[in-house]
């Protein structure tokens, strides 16, 4: 076999592998649940995907199951019991769209659609959902997903990069930080985090000395960290998820770069920081300077009844293997139930309109975020500042930091 032909073949096979990987991972049956007597909810998740995506998908599905269980015990949505269908999309947009179309074409289209990320899934399914007038909630905000003029029946559950970074800028300002370096991944959401971080930190009057990216498959971030260090960064704002977070922390230590690190929610979604060696880095000098942004519901609070009900229900349905930062899908059931209570029906357009009103947002007994603050002009989750907390990593108990039993 000639070397030239091997090179060509490997390139071709490499390209084919990307396509095959994209096609892999579908198995669960789609389709809606019952008929008009039930409120059919479809949730897709990358349960068979690789890496941390699958673990997070499991938590996301567990949250949806818990939300459905609790709302059914409270009488359901608009007087109908919720029937939840879980579909494994393998983290692949093509599979997610195929499964959604199968459900629609079965003649029993879902009343509500929930995705479990990443944002590529949302971008793929949203046009189909819009075309078929299906109400939806999305956990991975991306460009336009919160824009009612583009997707009038979609609402983003996770606060977008702007909301997150507004919180981070506020925290940094309170700490008296300045000369901030930003390091983020080159994924779609990573780029959005980086841009938003720069904008919000600058808007808050602090100096951004540099902004660097890394490839999500990269094994070493020393060059990027050294660039930021050389630029005079005194604080690092970090978006990193999974193994890359470990590399960043290792490389910080290698450089002897001892500055405060503010982790985005992506950092708190990685279990590495919540486990002691040899499984993780908790308790080592690598995380001495690290605080991560989390939601109020990701931190244990014995007095928060709504959150504790969510956690107990989820734990009763299965093991919570990741942080509750991925438990967004618990809340849509309560938002829609409150909207249905107001409208007196489950028409998706009526529900979407009601979801932007103060009385519905006030009455929805959500737990993941205390209040979503959707408006007629923006379907982005825009929580108040107290929805965020900044915590040093601890061991996780049922997906929460700060539990004294940890």
């Amino acid at each position, binding site marked *: 076999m000639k070397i030239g032909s091997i090179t060509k073949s*490997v390139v071709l096979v490499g390209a084919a592998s990307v396509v095959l990987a994209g096609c892999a991972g579908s198995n669960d049956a789609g389709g809606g649940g019952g008929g008009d007597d039930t409120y059919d909810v479809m949730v897709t998740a990358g349960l068979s995907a690789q890496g941390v995506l699958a673990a997070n998908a499991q938590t996301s599905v567990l949250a949806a199951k818990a939300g459905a269980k609790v709302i059914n015990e409270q009488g359901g949505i608009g007087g109908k019991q919720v029937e939840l269908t879980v579909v494994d999309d393998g983290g692949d947009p093509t599979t997610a769209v195929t499964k959604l179309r199968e459900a629609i074409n079965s003649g029993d289209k879902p009343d509500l659609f929930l995705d479990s990320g990443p944002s590529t899934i949302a971008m793929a399914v949203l046009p189909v959902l819009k075309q078929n007038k299906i109400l939806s909630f999305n956990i991975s905000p991306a460009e336009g997903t919160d824009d009612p003029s583009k997707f009038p029946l979609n609402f983003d559950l996770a606060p977008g990069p702007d909301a997150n970074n507004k919180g981070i800028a506020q925290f940094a300002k309170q700490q008296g930080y300045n000369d901030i370096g930003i390091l983020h991944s080159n994924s779609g959401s990573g780029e959005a985090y980086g841009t938003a971080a720069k904008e919000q930190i600058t808007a808050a009057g602090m100096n951004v000395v540099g902004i660097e990216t*890394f490839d999500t*498959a990269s094994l070493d971030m020393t060059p990027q960290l050294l660039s930021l260090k050389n630029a005079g960064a005194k604080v690092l704002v970090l978006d990193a998820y999974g193994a890359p977070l470990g590399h960043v922390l*290792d490389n910080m230590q290698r450089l002897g770069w001892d500055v405060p690190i503010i982790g985005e929610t992506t950092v708190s979604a990685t279990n590495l920081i919540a486990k002691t060696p040899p499984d993780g880095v908790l308790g080592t000098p690598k995380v001495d300077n690290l605080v991560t942004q989390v939601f109020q519901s990701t931190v244990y609070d014995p007095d928060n009844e709504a959150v504790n009900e969510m956690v107990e229900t989820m734990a009763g349905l299965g093991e919570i293997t990741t942080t509750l930062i991925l438990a967004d899908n618990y809340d849509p059931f309560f938002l829609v139930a409150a909207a249905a209570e107001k409208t007196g029906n489950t028409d998706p357009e009526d529900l979407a309109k009601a979801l932007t009103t103060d009385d519905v947002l006030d009455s929805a007994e959500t737990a993941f975020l205390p209040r979503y603050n959707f408006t007629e002009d923006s379907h982005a989750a825009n929580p108040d500042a107290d929805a965020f907390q900044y915590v040093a990593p601890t061991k996780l108990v049922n997906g929460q930091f700060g539990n004294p039993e940890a």
Partner: protein
Amino acid sequence: MTIVLSGLALGAVYALVAIGYNIVFISSSTFNFAQAQLMMVGTFVAYTGLVTWDLPVIVVALLAAAVVAVIAGIEDLTAVWPVKDRHTQLVTTLGVATLLGGACQLIWGNQPLSVPFLSYNDPVDFLGGRTYPVELALIAAAVLLVAVLTWLSKRTMLGQALIGISEDTEAATLRGISVRKLALGAFVFSGALAGVLGLLVGPKTFAVATLGTALAIKGFVALAIGGFGSLPGCLIGGFVVGLAESLTALHWGAQYSSLMVFAVLLVLLLARPTGLFGRTAERVV
């Protein structure tokens, strides 16, 4: 110097993958797409042996070598040998790579796992730069491995037989060399090597089910730069890729790293289509 050391360590990881590709290629002209995944399995076995079972390093090394050698042997028997066409073997070995990725995820889960390095891995000062002991060990292992394998291929009958097969399989068969047994042996050996190296690669990369994919392409680029069939080429190719990646990220930003790596590959292949150390085979037409 810190960046140079970090680039060399990264390059050493790519070189170790490329060496695995080369061992199989020399013996059977097969490109084993699953070689990086075999090394990934080695990192997971290392994690289980060192962390979960708390076994001595030497026992874990033997265990990792045995487990991955068996997997590589099964791969040869099921995905390579029955498939005579070399192009089709690329697809079947890719299938094995996908299976190994899925199996690792099922067995070891989705979160990155820390593989300890000899219970000590704090940064050290070296030649004016800062690095980790495991990174020095990776560089040393890659250099040593190339030196030993090159010596073996030139000075032993086994090595000569393998080179004979790579030059002309038919002639080697006529000289009494068991091509089939040697090809299987090379596959098993490359697997055993990948298993042992998992103990060194794991502390640098974490044991994670996406590792194989991350290493496969850069390992191939290292091989293509160095030249198919050349062990020193693997080493130089790996270091070129690692240094290009690190230095580009430092000076121009990480968004240009992969671009630079492939630019170097393209320029080099335009100048030397067989890679830095590859040889052009002449034939009568």
